[in-house]
């Protein structure tokens, strides 16, 4: 009888324990919407970076809000923004009201992100931008803080700062040209796609390059979606340029890389070439994009912070290719976790001041926000990388002793062989 009593007791307590654990496991998850053009590489990386962070965080028990631990649930939101802006705003509204997400991370095409930003702000939801570089997004925070304070940009650094990185990288390459080719004043052709974001960069280039002892031989502005730049390249070759300074985000970047290689234009392409940041660039140029160099966020084997290599390696292992910059959703998730755990709430208004004080060593650098909710750029913060395609591999070559910053794993920049004929 007694034994039976005990058995019942054990069973009851076990059941009770089970119930407790199940209620704990069924703790309401924190829902995060990952928004991006999911049929395209940018969206794929948005999602992949977020998946990686979700699994790591959930494996560690989830996000601690107060005393409770909540798992993370990520929701895939296809904005289709490359093809349609209204689709993007609809997707944002759907995520916020139908999927009822607590936070949104992502975005890529600026025209669409501006529209989506407004929708998110209408609902006072925190929107962490990963993908659009335009300064306007941050300026809105300054102009109307109460409305736009829920917006933070995680990556990339804003376009003005990208310009600073460009000149630093350009200086390094010019030094190498002077040294190896004996050309005291390298000639630079500026090739910028016709877009607003390049304007400040083109203007700064025209002002700064002569001061940096370089000569600007011309500015070419093809359409971001041009499918052929042989005409531009012929003109550049005729102008005798040693450097082709690019500011390109569209597919014309691939065309540039490929046709430069095929025509063996004796000049070094360097600048922003978003397509050249992608792993698919080598394939897309059929291997002709050798020596093309660009700014980037991650590089294989490059240790920006202690977090970088574990992230890049885990990413590559799981998805079969290294991350591009929209995979910074990974850092965004960790920034969010840190803020929620410090604030002890997922209430957006209470989270904003905490997020503003973010100081997180992420995979892309040390993330600290400025007044515009943009990531602070500079040595010791986020710097970005400059990479060059060398025989099918993307190799980082900058920062190499820039203001005291050298990342482990950076290698030397290679001057294309066809340049060597120009040696004086």
């Amino acid at each position: 009888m007694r034994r039976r009593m005990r058995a019942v007791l054990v069973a009851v307590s076990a059941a009770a324990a089970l119930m407790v654990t199940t209620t704990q496991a069924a703790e309401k998850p924190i829902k995060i919407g990952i928004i991006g053009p999911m049929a395209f590489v940018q969206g794929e990386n948005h999602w992949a970076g977020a998946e990686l962070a979700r699994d790591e965080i959930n494996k560690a028990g989830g996000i601690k809000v107060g005393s409770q631990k909540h798992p993370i649930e990520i929701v895939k939101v296809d904005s289709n923004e490359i093809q349609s802006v209204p689709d993007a705003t609809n997707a944002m509204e759907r995520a916020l009201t139908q999927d009822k997400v607590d936070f949104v991370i992502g975005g890529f095409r600026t025209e669409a992100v501006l529209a989506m930003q407004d929708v998110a702000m209408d609902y006072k939801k925190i929107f962490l931008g990963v993908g659009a570089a335009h300064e306007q997004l941050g300026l809105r925070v300054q102009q109307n803080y109460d409305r736009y304070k829920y917006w933070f940009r995680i990556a990339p650094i804003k376009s003005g700062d990208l310009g600073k990185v460009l000149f630093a990288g350009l200086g390094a390459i010019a030094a190498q040209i002077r040294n190896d080719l004996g050309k005291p004043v390298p000639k630079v052709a500026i090739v910028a796609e016709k877009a607003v974001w390049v304007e400040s960069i083109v203007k700064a280039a025209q002002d700064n390059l002569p001061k940096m002892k370089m000569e600007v031989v011309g500015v070419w502005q093809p359409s971001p979606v041009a499918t052929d730049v042989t005409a531009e390249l012929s003109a550049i070759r005729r102008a005798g340029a040693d450097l082709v300074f690019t500011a390109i985000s569209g597919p014309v970047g691939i065309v540039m890389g490929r046709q430069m290689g095929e025509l063996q234009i004796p000049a070094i392409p360097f600048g922003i070439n978003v397509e050249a940041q992608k792993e698919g660039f080598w394939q897309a140029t059929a291997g002709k994009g050798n020596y093309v160099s660009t700014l980037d966020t991650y590089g294989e084997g490059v240790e920006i912070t202690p977090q970088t290599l574990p992230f890049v390696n885990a990413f590559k292992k799981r998805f079969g290719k290294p991350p591009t910059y929209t995979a910074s959703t990974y850092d965004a998730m960790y920034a969010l976790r840190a803020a929620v755990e410090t604030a002890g709430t997922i209430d957006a208004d209470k989270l904003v001041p905490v997020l503003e004080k973010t100081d997180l060593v992420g995979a892309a650098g040390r993330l600290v926000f400025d007044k515009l909710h943009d990531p602070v750029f500079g040595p010791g913060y986020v710097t970005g990388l400059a990479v060059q395609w060398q025989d099918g591999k993307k190799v980082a070559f900058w920062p190499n002793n820039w203001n005291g910053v050298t990342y482990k794993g950076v290698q030397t920049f290679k001057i294309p062989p066809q340049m060597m004929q120009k040696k004086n």
Partner: protein
Amino acid sequence: MRALIYPIRRAYILLRTEVFALPSRAVVFLFSLALLLLPLYSTDPYVLRIVIMTCVFAIFAASWDLLAGYTGQVNFGHALFFGIGAYASSLLNYHFQLSPWITIPIGAISAMLGGILVGIPCLRLRGSYLSLATLAFPLILIGLLFAFPGFSGGELGISGIQRLFTYPVHNYYAAVILMLVLCFAMWKIGDSNTGLIFHAIREDEVAARASGINTKRYKLLAFGLSGLFAGIAGAFFAHFIRIAGPSTLEVALSFQAVIWGIFGGVATIYGPVVAVFILYPLTEAVAVFPALREYRLLILAIVVLLVLLFMPQGLTPWLRNKIETVCRRCKNRNVFWRRECRVCGTELH
């Protein structure tokens, strides 16, 4: 008391003899009523947003029909008017802080002027030449916008413009009422004397001219009116999503208008509206199912193709012919079960 009863009686008679006499009209009436009552049932902002977008594109598609369907000027660059409306109203709102109540009409008028301006060279063109030439105009405008980024915002467009209303429900009613009023107006135009001349120009321009009709003037009128309505849609759209960018001028949007118009049935006004109300929410509904999200455009294209194979004149004429018969003598429409015409009493079958 009588004063009150009279209008109610009038309305009742009008409803019974003019609206409920025909199933198609009854459907339109009930559907409009349902749209107006929807917020009582649900104020879900997502649902409201989809209906608002649907309304905007319904006006846009109907305005294409006024030009392409009625007058036969098959415009392949209809996004031009949408974009002009959106850009004009956004620029005024952004630079001069004019209220949307002023900028939307100005945007519409700019689009109307744009319509007339484009119409002038198009007077000399016909058929496929006209279609393909009109395709060029929005693309030339995009080129200009990119050439003057300080003015147009380049690829970003004009953002940060004011909304018409703050609350979704208010915006909802604005959109629905605007759509109902404008589409009814367009339908009335199509039914009027002017509409008849538009039909004549499409069917045989030489004959119309021979009958003493100044076809040039009427073609320009069609361009202007179509531009006006599309401009209202564009301006309202810009103030709703709060950005006017180059995507409002894209080829894809122009093609969208052609698809909606032909899918619904041309020269009807209600056809394109029905098409938008079916296709736009359908693509969104498909997007709600995660497994189908990436397939939505494919599904849309296949649906359009299948419908066209079975109803080459479009959806609404096919449906209408199933439920209504035309009187052989007076050309009035009747419910299919009637044995004699409701107007002249001729035997129908």
